């Protein structure tokens, strides 16, 4: 029986879908069977980030309404074995989601996959509630910035009040991913440090992702950053994936700013 993670943020644009894609690939690279489900109905993007937009024929609403079989709708990743995507509907909106059908879909996926990872829509409306309803644990993505952290806290509150596990008085584990950390700003006291964010939200840390120009390039080409061996953000996602697979990986310091040495600066003049 697999475990169900909902990836949530409250605020939009903090890197939820990027995180879903990278974590998914990372866990699949560890040899686990992973399915990613895009719950952002009407604003499908996970397919684009994974470079699979041309392969979407059937989506999750087709499956829930029995217009397509699950096998037909699941799209195999180009980059990684063991990784599958169930795309969001682009034509129907969140009103297409019905509680019992969502439950049935997730139960079926849990039987076949080790990790079922749900990419929640931004906001805290009904689409969000459907995503967190049957999650065993949530991964909360924030940027080190006040509005993102406040919205995340609100989203966490809804998980604790409304999810099925919470109603059964069971704990819903919450893990924090801090995305887009700018080390030089943190060092200068111009950006919230991870310790402060953890202190405010009081949930467990899962990983810290430094800001990386490569992320934009990665989404441009549909090849998530974790596939780039030289990227720091990619390495950070790899560590997160290993932690989610039960490995004990110490947290690296991505917040201290190391200014490039004079030699690297001179070298870069000649490149």
């Amino acid at each position, binding site marked *: 029986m697999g475990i169900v993670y909902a990836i949530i943020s409250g605020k939009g644009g903090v890197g939820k879908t990027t995180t879903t894609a990278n974590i998914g690939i990372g866990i699949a690279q560890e040899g686990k069977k992973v399915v990613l489900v895009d719950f952002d109905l009407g604003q499908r993007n996970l397919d684009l980030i994974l470079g699979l937009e041309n392969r979407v024929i059937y989506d999750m609403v087709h499956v829930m309404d029995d217009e397509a079989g699950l096998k037909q709708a699941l799209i195999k990743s180009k980059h990684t074995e063991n990784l599958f995507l169930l795309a969001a509907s682009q034509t129907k909106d969140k009103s297409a989601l019905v509680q019992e059908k969502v439950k049935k879909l997730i139960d079926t996926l849990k039987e076949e996959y080790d990790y079922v990872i749900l990419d929640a829509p931004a906001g805290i409306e009904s689409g969000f509630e459907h995503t967190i309803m049957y999650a065993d644990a949530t991964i909360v993505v924030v940027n080190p910035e006040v509005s993102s*952290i406040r919205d995340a806290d609100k989203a966490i509150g809804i998980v604790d009040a409304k999810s099925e596990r919470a109603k059964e008085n069971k704990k819903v584990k919450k893990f924090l991913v801090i995305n887009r950390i700018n080390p030089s700003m943190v060092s200068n006291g*111009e950006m919230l440090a991870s310790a402060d964010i953890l202190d405010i939200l009081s949930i467990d840390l899962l990983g810290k992702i430094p800001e990386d120009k490569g992320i934009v390039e990665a989404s441009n080409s549909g090849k998530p950053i974790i596939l780039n061996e030289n990227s720091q953000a990619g390495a950070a996602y790899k560590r997160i994936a290993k932690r989610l697979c039960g490995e004990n990986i110490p947290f690296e310091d991505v917040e201290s700013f190391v200014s490039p040495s004079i030699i690297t600066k001179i070298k870069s003049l000649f490149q």
Partner: protein
Amino acid sequence: MSFFSLFNKKEKSAGVAKDRLRIAISSDRNNTSYPFMAEMKADIIEVVRKYIQAQSVHITRESDGDVDTLGIEIIIPK
């Protein structure tokens, strides 16, 4: 850094952010009633009305360390 900036040191914005967030979030957490508060209120009124003519119900949620307490006040007309 100029000579004067030594005396006129601006507070670091990350510290300001932390303090402001703390206050905003603690007030969010306290003020937000449960999402199901309205439904619960209606249910309570219904139950109470079986026995006595309730006029209105006020529910207040308070946090006290590790536990939340709900105060339910039922107003009965004389």
